[in-house]
């Protein structure tokens, strides 16, 4: 993985640039010393690191605007950073670029229950929004597993998901508006407390753009009433096929569970040893189906899910009868990562999405690859929406294990795309999967995406080196191959 070559002249100007930034945000908000820059060298994808040129921590939208206007004038690169929890290296710094940290934009500006929305600055954590409205019985639906730490601005950049996406959508379906600073410092507002916008859906393309179109400073999110009831069913299956069939049958019966998670045998054993959730150990696959909503509906549907599970050949079915049981069912799934931490020095988690019907096929292929590479793989799976989480176990201290792990991961992702799936369902491309974009998209597809980038940031100053395997100059992408009237309309029947 190669990042753009750092510009030595820019690095040599570090002190002068720091002085200019201090004039905007004050002394305390510019981090220049190497020791203090060190904590920013990586994000949730720790395999990659780079020391940023400088870190600047603005406190207001105005400061963000002035910083960006300055960088734009000086042709300086900017890497926006929320809480730094990206699993794809979205906030990986550049040695000749400024890391623009948004952690000080940490206030919830407005909670408006009548319009069922909240307005938060981009550095507010995902969970803080829910906490701010929980006493009135509301919550913010997308719940990435990092929700205690990850920022809402980062969620917008990555279009973050969670375990409830099938029913409640991703970030993009739950954000009503943003305030965003463009590369030249212009502050724009997209959407708001109303639905949709006039003109092109710039809010829609901003969500999931991995910090490459603008820097989001404020987010208006949709609030939902917390479901009255949630109950879970824990179902064990003798094979991945029968578990997969059960997922398909539940959805085919018109039931959209709030969450539907699957674990394969290695995952079940790893977490049961760790949390003792009472998971059956004699099954090949375990399914947690959670139904949430009005009590009458949940009680009705849970019986249907139980019937379907039995028809699909389940070997064990347990239904939660109280909140404590429901929480216990989830405890194992939620502890999957720490549980794996006990049995392996390092692990690497992927997140391709596949058509659910391909699950047994993909798992079989993964088992073959596991033998080929001599590395163990464990699967937890957002079964409802087809989002896999294969976790490859390795030891970075052993020669070539990281490299083998990465090749194993690439093979998994390629196979998922071949099966009609996609590279990433919720973690983003970042630097991690950047060079695999060609597996899904051809040059014309990628060029068209980059032309969108060019409309926002023609000089390519915002988060360069992410998402696109090859960077083309905007002038080159904009060029039209015209033939000055020599191209004729094809000889088709005209009406």
């Amino acid at each position, binding site marked *: 993985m190669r990042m753009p070559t750092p510009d030595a002249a820019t690095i040599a100007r570090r002190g002068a640039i720091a002085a200019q930034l201090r004039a905007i945000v004050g002394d305390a908000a510019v981090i220049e010393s190497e020791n203090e820059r060190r904590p920013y060298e990586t994000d949730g994808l720790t395999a990659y690191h780079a020391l940023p040129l400088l870190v600047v921590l603005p406190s207001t939208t105005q400061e963000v605007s002035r910083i960006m206007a300055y960088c734009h004038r000086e042709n300086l690169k900017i890497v926006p950073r929320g809480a730094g929890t990206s699993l794809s290296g979205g906030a990986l710094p550049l040695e000749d670029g400024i890391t623009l940290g948004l952690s000080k934009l940490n206030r919830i500006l407005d909670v408006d*229950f*009548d*319009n*069922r929305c909240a307005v938060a600055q981009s550095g507010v954590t995902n969970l803080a929004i829910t906490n701010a409205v929980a006493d009135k019985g509301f919550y913010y639906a997308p719940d990435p597993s990092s929700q205690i730490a990850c920022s809402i601005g980062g969620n917008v950049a990555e*279009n973050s998901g969670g375990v409830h996406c*099938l029913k409640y959508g991703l970030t993009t*379906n739950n954000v009503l508006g943003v305030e965003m600073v463009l590369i030249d410092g212009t502050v724009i*507002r*997209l959407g*708001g407390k*109303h*639905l*949709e916008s*006039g*003109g*092109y*859906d*710039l809010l*829609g*393309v901003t*969500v999931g*753009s991995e910090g490459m179109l603008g820097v989001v400073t404020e987010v208006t999110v949709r609030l939902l*009433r917390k*479901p009255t009831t949630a109950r879970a069913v824990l179902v064990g299956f003798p094979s991945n096929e029968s578990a997969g069939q059960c997922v*398909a049958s539940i*959805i*085919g019966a*018109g039931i*959209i569970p709030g969450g539907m998670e699957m674990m394969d045998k290695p995952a079940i054993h790893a977490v049961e040893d760790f949390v003792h959730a009472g998971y059956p150990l004699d099954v090949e696959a375990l399914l947690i189906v959670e139904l949430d909503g*009005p009590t009458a*509906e949940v009680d009705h549907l849970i019986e249907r899910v139980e019937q379907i599970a039995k028809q699909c050949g389940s070997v064990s079915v347990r239904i939660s009868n109280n909140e404590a049981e429901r929480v216990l069912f989830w405890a194992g799934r939620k502890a999957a990562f720490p549980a794996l931490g006990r049995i392996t020095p390092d692990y690497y988690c992927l997140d391709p*999405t596949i*058509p659910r019907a391909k699950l047994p096929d993909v798992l079989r292929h993964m088992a073959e690859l596991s033998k080929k590479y001599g590395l163990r793989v464990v699967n937890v799976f*957002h079964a409802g*929406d*087809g*989002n896999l989480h294969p976790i490859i176990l390795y030891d970075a201290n052993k020669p070539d294990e990281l490299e083998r792990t990465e090749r194993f991961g690439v093979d998994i992702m390629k196979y998922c795309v071949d099966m009609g*799936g*996609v*590279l*990433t369902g919720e973690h983003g*491309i970042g630097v991690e999967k950047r060079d695999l*974009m060609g597996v899904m998209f051809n040059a014309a*597809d*990628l060029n*068209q*995406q980059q032309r*969108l980038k*060019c409309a*926002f940031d023609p000089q390519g100053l915002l988060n360069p080196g992410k998402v696109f395997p090859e960077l083309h100059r905007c002038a080159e992408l*904009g060029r*039209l191959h*015209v*033939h000055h009237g020599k*191209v*004729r*309309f*094809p000889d*088709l029947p*005209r009406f």
Partner: protein
Amino acid sequence: MSRFRPTDEKQLAEIVSAALDSEEPLEIVAGGSKRGLGRPLQAPHTLDVSGFSGIRQYEPEELVLSAGAATPLDEIEKTLKAKRQMLAFEPGDWRALLGSGGQGQTLGGIISCNLAGPRRIRQGAARDHFLGFQAVSGRGEAFKAGGRVVKNVTGYDLCKLIAGSYGTLAVMTEITVKVLPLPEATRTVALKGLDDARAVAAMIHGLNSSHELSGAAHLPGAAGGALTVLRVEGPVPSVEARSAALRAELKTFGGAEILGDADSVKLWTGLGDGTPLAGDKESAVWRVSVAPATAPAFLAQLGRALDFKYFLDWGGGLVWLSVKGGEDGGAQDIRACLAQDQGHATLIRGSAALRNSVPVFQPLAPALASLAARIKDGFDPKRVLNRGRLYPEI
């Protein structure tokens, strides 16, 4: 004036390339049901994309359907219904409203206009169900975006950009959408005689309750007096319990009637189709998107400037207006009542002259207008696709 009807992507790319080279714009047409929507076009050529039709892939258990962009919506809805599924964003049929008659709407048409009916408040708009597409850009190049799965963050979300772009960026040939199960049953809790403020208060109460409303509308001009309606959908025991609980909780707003499946479906379909305002063919019809709780204030302010008929959908967040007379169809007064960044107004029905003389879509702030123009440059630099349909310069 030529009309081209390509049957494959290669022919389509050739037509767009020729249009590009001669700088002669194309009007994109499939079913033609929404030709009266948006700014009038005066393109020398018509690009009939109806050849890109037919369901390509439908896997009910994956909740995904792929079809040619010009596949009739009727065909799609029929196919989905056979498996007890639907397009959950509930696109309306505006043929009667627009007086466009003729053929039905197509999947590409509703995606291009990002339509959504009453269920918008619960399930989102077309944009939220649009997973992937194949298209030819205004540069004459075939490209694709998105995927065929319901959860995908691979690359920029160009689907969002294309939804609601009114065919000004690319000509879609194939579309993949997310589909959802049809609700087993529907009930509507109907309150009578409320004024706007009380109606919106009742809708807020309902929407903020735990009963998972999938519709909240207010019809001040209903036969028999103002009607405020709240919809619940789901399994039978669930809708029975929720509608009864809602009625009890809303007692302070007067006694409520509960409508069953057939009456509910008729009512909500009519609301999505704009039926309450479809009758008076001479009037201009607008859809105004506001923060839901501000609808009464907006209506009161507008009432001091203009005579109009109206109804509310989306819990107050969507104001349908019918304005009779006036040179500009009420454009200036309506937009003057919308605070900066607090909403937008779209002219849905108006004569070609009116749609030429007033902005059909909400005028954009300068920074957004120049961004939109630069995006258009990237997709359709010579403005050969539906030139001027959204904004004169786009």
